[in-house]
């Protein structure tokens, strides 16, 4: 039984662009997969907990299987030892998929400019949004989420976004 808006609409037909209706749906039902390795993962926990409450943005269904997720949040330092695993998990995610590099380490290596740390995960996988901070505050995670949502709005289902990407492991 329809109780909301759909009750009023009855049998009427709405017309829109395919991109717009799909993007609208994708935008507000992002399922994040948290690739948490370090300190930033603790701040992501805060973003998910009651005070900041990520569910206000429709992204609270945190998946730990990449096959069920469309947004990857890389929270923490990625070492060269970790990099092939990051790449494999990313490849297991179905299209379309978005990536957020959370914090200085994931974005650029951060304070760890040395022999074991990947100097930014965009050398391994394509990244859509970077969050600064070491670690970023939970508000910054929410800000990045909004940035991803805005980005989704401008995309088209007909385009393959990162087909030319080539990282150090490719």
């Amino acid at each position: 039984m329809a109780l909301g808006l759909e009750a009023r609409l009855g049998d009427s037909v709405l017309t829109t662009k395919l991109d717009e209706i799909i993007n609208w749906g994708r935008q507000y039902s992002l399922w994040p997969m948290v690739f948490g390795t370090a300190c930033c993962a603790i701040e992501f926990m805060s973003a998910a907990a009651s005070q900041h409450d990520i569910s206000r943005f429709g992204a609270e269904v945190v998946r730990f299987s990449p096959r069920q997720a469309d947004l990857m949040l890389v929270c923490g330092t990625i070492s060269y030892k970790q990099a092939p695993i990051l790449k494999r998990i990313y490849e297991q995610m179905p299209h379309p998929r978005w990536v957020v590099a959370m914090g200085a380490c994931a974005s650029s290596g951060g304070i760890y400019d040395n022999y074991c740390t990947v100097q930014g995960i965009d050398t391994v996988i394509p990244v859509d949004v970077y969050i600064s901070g070491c670690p970023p505050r939970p508000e910054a995670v929410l800000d990045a989420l909004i940035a991803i949502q805005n980005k989704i709005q401008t995309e088209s289902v007909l385009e393959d976004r990162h087909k030319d990407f080539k990282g150090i492991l490719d």
Partner: protein
Amino acid sequence: MTDTVSEKLRALFPDIEPQKVLDATVIDVEPERLMVVMERLKTYPDLDFSLLLDITAVDYLTYPGQQGGRFRVVYTLRNWKRNWLLQVRTPVADPELGLPTVSGLWGAADWAEREVYDQYGIRFQGHPDLRRILNHWQFEGHPLRKDYDIYKGQVCYEPDRLEKEIRARLAAKGIDQSTMSDINTEMMFLNLGPSHPATHGAIRIFTALDGETIMANVNEIGYLHRGFEKTAENRTYNQIIPLTDRLNYCSALMNNIAYVKAVESWLGIEITDRAMFMRVILGEFFRVQDHLVCLAANLVDMGGLTNYWYLYNEKEASYDFISRLTGARLTSSFTRIGGMYRDFYEGWEADLERQLQAIEKGVNDSLKLVLQNRIVHDRTQGTCVLSPEKALSYGYTGPNLRSTGIAFDLRKDNPYYHYDSFDFDIPIGSRGDIYDRIMVRFEEIFESIKIIRQAVKRIPAGPVFVDDHRVALPPKEQVYHKIEGLANHFKLIFEGVKTPAGEWYDSYEAANGELGFHFVSDGSGTPYKLKVRPPCFYAMSGFHEMIEGEMIADAIINLGSINIIGGELDR
């Protein structure tokens, strides 16, 4: 106390001259005699060095005025009953030949020696499984050698398979394929991690299963190896403080305190009373935070999500106090060599007390769900039991060791910052199972709150920084108007706090156990070498002993109960 250890050592080894360095007694042993000496240290009831805290090496390649060989290996031992700390130093003539292994004496030596091999390329003869531990298997060279370039990264193309290792472990336990076919079953290999929700960070747990029972287990770490030690060799002493934040990031301030305490004790600096009390209050407050996160996550693993909200919300609320004080939520960087970054703000007592009451409420609410809960009891009592002997052998310290019934706590056994004048108890377990580990942490929360309340009452007024031009920045009027002040400021910032040349070890009771720092100084403002003794690393090295024979689901909650923090584990 330590005089008696010197006497006992002299009586046993007349030709070895023990030296005293801070709390530790240091002896030099020739490689040929290493095994004899180590065996006696471990097994003679008079000495009883049952705890191998750490093994590390020093590369003297660029050490000013160095004589003798290039490498030296240092073993740090402890007799926990009598508070004896001993360091055994042995020169290594040829790293390829290396030294005999001591992994037959202490379980902790297994991973410790692997780390020395990985970082310095020193081999240990007779080691059962000498391969890399922190760096990946395709890595070439040894990063902590002085001739390895810090920026020389090496790409890893695929993860290690670990198949050989698990088969070796199965064979060591006397299980092979024929045993399995005899009972009409097949072995299943199951890999958990390094990206798995239950591993709380990047750890890889590889198991061989019979049904759901774990027959053998090997673990791989190093996924969060961020080169702390190599980076520290390129920073001044004060610049390392932000790096220490990121060791155990659930209790960042405790690492800050442990680190500066180690530098100050070598410099012979006595910090002001107010700074000491600040460190006690904040240290204990962060111990509570650390336990809250550990328990919250552990109970979620068990299916009790409500506990997560009760416990984690209080941690989240505490950030208001912490960020108001330090300016940061997680990574505080609040100490400096010689004192604290700044004093408390006005009205901090009320804020702190409010937080403490909220935490007590949250913890009590959570305990109501846990204490009489049949499911919790059935899942945790008698599972993943660790005996006190095993715990000591694998170098366990902190709550994990205390849960086995051993009342060793540096705050009581080697007190610093007036800890001997506070009224608090050391909770211990009786069986060393998961239940004990959880309950010891719950109890420690209340004990820490007790200490905080006493310290808040007793904290004296006064400065929070020592008046010592070797470490303290001069007041701004002097910097702007006097050349001596300007020069002093410039030198402290650019060259760093200078420490006298030498080697020392100092430790602190962090939330997870004994957090130690082993320094080698060449007299300059940057450490020549800095090795962390992380409590997690040794807790993880004994993990397989706890879970073999148990169910796979128990392994998950056991991992949560020993509180592995990646930053500290892999550094």
